[in-house]
């Protein structure tokens, strides 16, 4: 009875631990996002020129305009308003790309396409990488192992747009199997090449990581125990080896998704996909600052969100990580 009580108490404490951990992560994320908003706000103040630099305007007219747009208020109030606007998705209007279109509208029409291509790339990379890694670990020191190593070294070190250009030239231009440029009519066929090009980095990293993890798990005592208990073949690998090696793999997914976001900029430009990445490139090239700032905010928010989810996920799945993180700080 007493032991049961102790167990209950321990559970209770553990749950508190999880709560504390999640709270801490969420707070840090919110703080980071606020820090980014502050940086963006400062940048906006630093930008050259003023909207009211017409010489015909008298001082009183300028004051009236400033009052109208809230520019006469203390900087803290302005910042608070700015934060409110950013968080409620009110990013202002575009100046150069498409005049006076609300930026939120521009982004809303493009985000789904980017997410579709990115999602395809992540799933492609994760699945094939996982399979390749498992094959390499099971057939350690054979052809598959070497093949996996070569693929992972190539995939990690060659930038995704080199692959993109290669694919575009062979399959798009020479063989004409797939459209070279994105066609709105056939979104699936047009996203095959971009997703493949984007996925190679994810694929390579996951294959490499899976291989290492699997080798470690396969050599562990509990695998020997499981095997000696008569479990073999598929169940042994899936239920005992894979499940244990999957946990650390989640940890590498977050940085990979972020790399994907960077890669998508160039790949979207190469295949002229009407997504967020190409919008950012166009905005940078045409000096459309408000679009750049809005997209920076969205990218940061997405990034922080993904990191938060992954952090919480593996903190909850694997208590060792949560505890290690706490003793770390």
């Amino acid at each position: 009875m007493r032991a049961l009580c102790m167990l209950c108490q321990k559970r209770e404490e553990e749950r508190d631990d999880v709560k504390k951990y999640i709270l801490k992560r969420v707070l840090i994320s919110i703080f980071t996002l606020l820090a980014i908003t502050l940086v963006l706000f400062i940048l906006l103040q630093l930008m050259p020129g003023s909207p009211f630099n017409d010489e015909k305007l008298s001082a009183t007219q300028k004051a009236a305009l400033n009052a109208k747009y809230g520019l006469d208020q203390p900087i803290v109030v302005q910042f608070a308003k700015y934060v409110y606007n950013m968080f409620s998705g009110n990013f202002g209007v575009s100046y150069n790309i498409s005049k006076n279109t609300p930026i939120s509208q521009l982004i809303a029409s493009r985000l789904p396409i980017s997410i579709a291509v990115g999602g395809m790339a992540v799933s492609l990379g994760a699945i094939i990488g996982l399979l390749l890694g498992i094959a390499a670990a099971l057939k350690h020191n054979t052809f598959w192992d070497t093949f996996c190593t070569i693929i992972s070294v190539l995939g990690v070190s060659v930038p995704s747009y080199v692959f993109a250009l290669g694919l575009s030239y062979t399959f798009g231009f020479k063989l004409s199997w797939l459209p070279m440029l994105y066609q709105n009519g056939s979104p699936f066929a047009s996203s095959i090449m971009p997703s493949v090009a984007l996925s190679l980095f994810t694929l390579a990293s996951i294959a490499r990581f899976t291989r290492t993890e699997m080798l470690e798990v396969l050599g562990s005592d509990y695998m020997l125990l499981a095997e000696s208990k008569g479990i073999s073949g598929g169940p042994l690998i899936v239920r005992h080896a894979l499940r244990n090696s999957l946990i650390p793999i989640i940890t590498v997914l977050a940085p990979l998704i972020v790399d994907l976001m960077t890669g998508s900029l160039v790949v979207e430009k190469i295949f002229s996909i009407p997504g967020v990445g190409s919008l950012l490139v166009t905005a940078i090239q045409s000096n459309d600052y408000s679009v750049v700032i809005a997209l920076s905010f969205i990218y940061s928010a997405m990034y922080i969100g993904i990191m938060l989810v992954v952090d919480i996920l593996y903190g909850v799945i694997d208590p060792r990580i949560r505890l290690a993180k706490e003793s770390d700080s």
Partner: protein
Amino acid sequence: MGSIFNRQPAVVSGPKKETDFFEFLPEDFTLRGGADVTRIDRNFASQNYWVEVRHRFFSNKGAVFSLILVIIIALLAAFGPLMAGYSYSNQNLVQRNFAPRIPGLESIGIFKGDESLQTTTGTKLINGYKEKGLTDVYYWFGSDVLGRDIWTRVWEGTRVSLGIALCAAIIDMIIGMSYGLISGYFGGKVDSIMCRIAEIINGIPRLVIVTLLMLILPRGFVTIVFALMITEWIGMSRIARAEMLKLKEQEFVLASRTLGAKDFFIIFKEILPNTIGQIITQLMFSIPTAIFTEAFLSFVGLGIPVPMCSLGSLISDAFNSFTTHPYQIVPPILVLAFLMLCFNMLADGLREAFDPKLKEM
């Protein structure tokens, strides 16, 4: 540490009372027999750490091959622009879009300066050199849209890219190393605050920081290095901090402190030399990242301003005509890919050489 005082006194073997009347003779302190009698393991003699590291590194074929390739590329980047006799910024609008033509190789039928153009009427073979009657003009990698020699520009671009990467990596190493070591050494509140700061900076996507910086600062070499500096030091600081946490509890640190060493002496003179392997490895890994980021920035249009060039800007320029003149985009892409590949393999080799335990994986 308190456990030392609780221990039982060590038991000394041999007769105890003898010390009272024992007399030392001079030959008690000479070696009995020569060096050949004393047992020294000649087959597996213990070696200097660096000798072992070097041995392990040079037995890794991939790493040595990469090292050689990196040296070749670096030499070409240093002397390549002088070899062809063109300048990287001189335009020659008459000699535009010439295909590669190399003196020795044209007699055996390759690199004659031919290129096939696909037109509406079918494929057409053209040779700019013959059309313009320029029999003694050679562009080894061809010429670009503005009639500049691609060979010269590629190596000039490699030089710029490598320069940016090296500068950024070294600055990152210094900042990240000091930050991580200090944060790990002092621990407690200092560590906590320093970690939070790093965490927040790390929470902002690199892409966003770099893009915003490039927007407000004038474009150029220094700005790119600065942007890379702000984002890339975090990885280095993490590694330095982890190493510090591992090392600072060890006896040699305690010994040094007992002898009266101050904190900064311990950090930089005692612990730093012990982390050097990890730090060199991380430095090697940060070079390809820097090269890649620079190439990415140039591709997006935030890179080195014209007429200067880098690998990224060459790729981005050639991209516009890569279906009609593919030879223009191939050299910079190959150099970029080889550089990234070689630096990654080099770093892998170094990591294994410094930490042989990893090799078993």
